């Protein structure tokens, strides 16, 4: 029972240490972003020089680097670099401006619905209660709560700039498939991200990632992969025009370095935070079986429900925000540590996946005996004060 453990929750409550850690991490993020920027600029210039080589024999047959550079059109490298920087930094800035609205704004962007103050739906009611319980345990404010109605798999996410404007989103699948203890574990994990100051870093990471990804996405847009109205034959002919494919494919290939950089950024910054949030969740709830059960159900979901498809809703730049975002990706490019490893650390042993069928949906009917708020006097019961 919770009363027993002595100093556990306090480790979560000490913010000074976390702040120093967060500063180190954001320095690392800045350095990694600069490196990614350099990579993208180099790739763009390299590709542009290759294109010029195709057209201009003077450049193609240059004997040395110096000759090659001299044969290029005036301000060639300068223009390429400036345009790329403008794109990447502008993209990052735009995304940062969009995220300035805080956790609630992002939640709405992802199509989440706020949980009402007094929900009639039992799982949502439990979620609201759990949020209050955790706030008491951590002695910190309750974040805004959202439900992702469109998401059928088990997932959750925390976003925002600080504990005051934080939002925690829980998927409908999580509400339907998890028991109360498991839901508490998942919520505590997300709340731990809020308490550890991870969410602010994650928001900036999302901005950086969307900047670095911009060249790749421009190429994708050129190919028309994302916006084909396949019903309309004319649009289809346009969409699959070979020139478009050539141009788009080239730009995508150039942007690939940005894509890899974005994945590395997300992996490097956020993966270790997951283990810390798991540990903090167990300390907060004092119950390893809750979070452990949720992780085991995730593993089942990974194996049974979607093989291969990325298991997180919303765009890629937010991949690192989710409770689970495993796909068939290579280990060191993944934003999250493998589930088996997380289960082993949380439960102290290996555990098999746990089937997660949707539990019976329970509504809370209008109560025949209304729950009284604390300040009302009890009914006809003897008052022990005498």
């Amino acid at each position: 029972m919770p009363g027993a453990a002595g100093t556990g929750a306090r480790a979560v409550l000490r913010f000074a240490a976390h702040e120093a850690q967060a500063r180190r991490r954001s320095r690392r993020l800045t350095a990694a972003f600069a490196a990614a920027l350099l990579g993208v600029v180099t790739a763009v210039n390299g590709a542009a020089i290759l294109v010029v080589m195709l057209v201009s024999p003077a450049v193609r047959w240059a004997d040395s680097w110096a000759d090659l550079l001299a044969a290029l059109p005036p301000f060639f490298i300068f223009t390429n670099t400036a345009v790329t920087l403008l794109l990447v930094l502008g993209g990052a800035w735009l995304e940062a401006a969009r995220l300035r609205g805080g956790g609630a704004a992002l939640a709405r962007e992802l199509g989440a619905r706020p949980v009402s103050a007094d929900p009639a739906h039992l799982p949502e009611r439990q979620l609201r209660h759990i949020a209050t319980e955790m706030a008491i345990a951590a002695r910190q404010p309750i974040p805004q709560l959202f439900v992702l109605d469109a998401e059928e798999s088990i997932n959750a996410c925390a976003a925002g700039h600080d504990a005051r404007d934080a939002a925690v989103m829980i998927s409908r699948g999580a509400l339907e498939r998890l028991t109360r203890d498991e839901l508490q574990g998942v919520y505590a994990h997300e709340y731990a991200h809020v308490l550890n100051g991870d969410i602010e870093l994650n928001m900036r990471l999302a901005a950086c990632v969307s900047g670095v990804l911009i060249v790749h996405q421009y190429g994708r847009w050129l190919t028309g992969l994302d916006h084909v109205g396949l019903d309309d034959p004319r649009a289809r002919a346009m969409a699959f025009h070979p020139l478009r494919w050539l141009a788009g494919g080239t730009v995508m290939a150039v942007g690939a370095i940005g894509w890899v950089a974005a994945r590395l950024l997300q992996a490097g910054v956020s993966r270790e935070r997951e283990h810390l949030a798991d540990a903090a969740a167990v300390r907060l709830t004092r119950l390893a079986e809750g979070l452990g059960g949720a992780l085991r159900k995730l593993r089942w979901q990974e194996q049974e429900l979607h093989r291969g498809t990325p298991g997180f809703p919303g765009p890629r730049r937010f991949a690192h925000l989710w409770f689970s975002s495993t796909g068939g990706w290579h280990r060191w490019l993944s934003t999250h540590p493998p589930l088996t490893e997380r289960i082993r650390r949380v439960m102290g042993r290996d555990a098999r996946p746990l089937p997660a069928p949707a539990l019976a949906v329970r509504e809370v009917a209008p109560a025949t005996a209304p729950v009284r708020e604390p300040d009302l006097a009890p009914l006809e019961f003897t008052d022990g004060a005498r």
Partner: protein
Amino acid sequence: MSVAQIIIVTALIGFALWLVSAYNRLIALRGHLHNAFAQIDVQLRRRFDLIPNLVEVARRYMEHERGTLEAVIAARDQTLACSREAARRPGDLGAMNALSGATGVLADALGRMMAVVEAYPELKADAAMTQLSEELATTENRIAFARQAYNDSVNDYNVAIGQFPVNLVAGLFRLVPSQPLQSCECLVQRGPVRVQF
């Protein structure tokens, strides 16, 4: 003023400043402690108000389990009395122990009752019961977490007033260590309690 005098005056001022800051820190910690206790108190009262509703709903389905229900109500009334006493004197050893004990008895009685509820499928399926069970579950969790938070602040406070040289300040202002809440040590005599249905 000679150099020696300046040094002495500076030392005295420094000492006075340290004294004030040490005292203020202890008082702030004691404030946290009282605040943490108030949080438990709010949640306990929530439970006190919940139990009559729960018993009322359960009674409709389990007339034969009257003894179980009466035990719950008796424990509730006892805990209510103890919590009033403890709220008057937070951190007091006797009051805290009495409250811990009464809370333990109540938790046991409630646990027995919820175990009996498992044997009544219609009661378990009752919408009001579903809601009340959830309310009770969250209240029990809140009490547990609030107790933990209280014990943490008691620990912070006790460590602070025990450390040298702050313990001298604590002694000067008669600040005594507080008592954390123990789990389930029944030190309370349960008197006869009138139950009305």
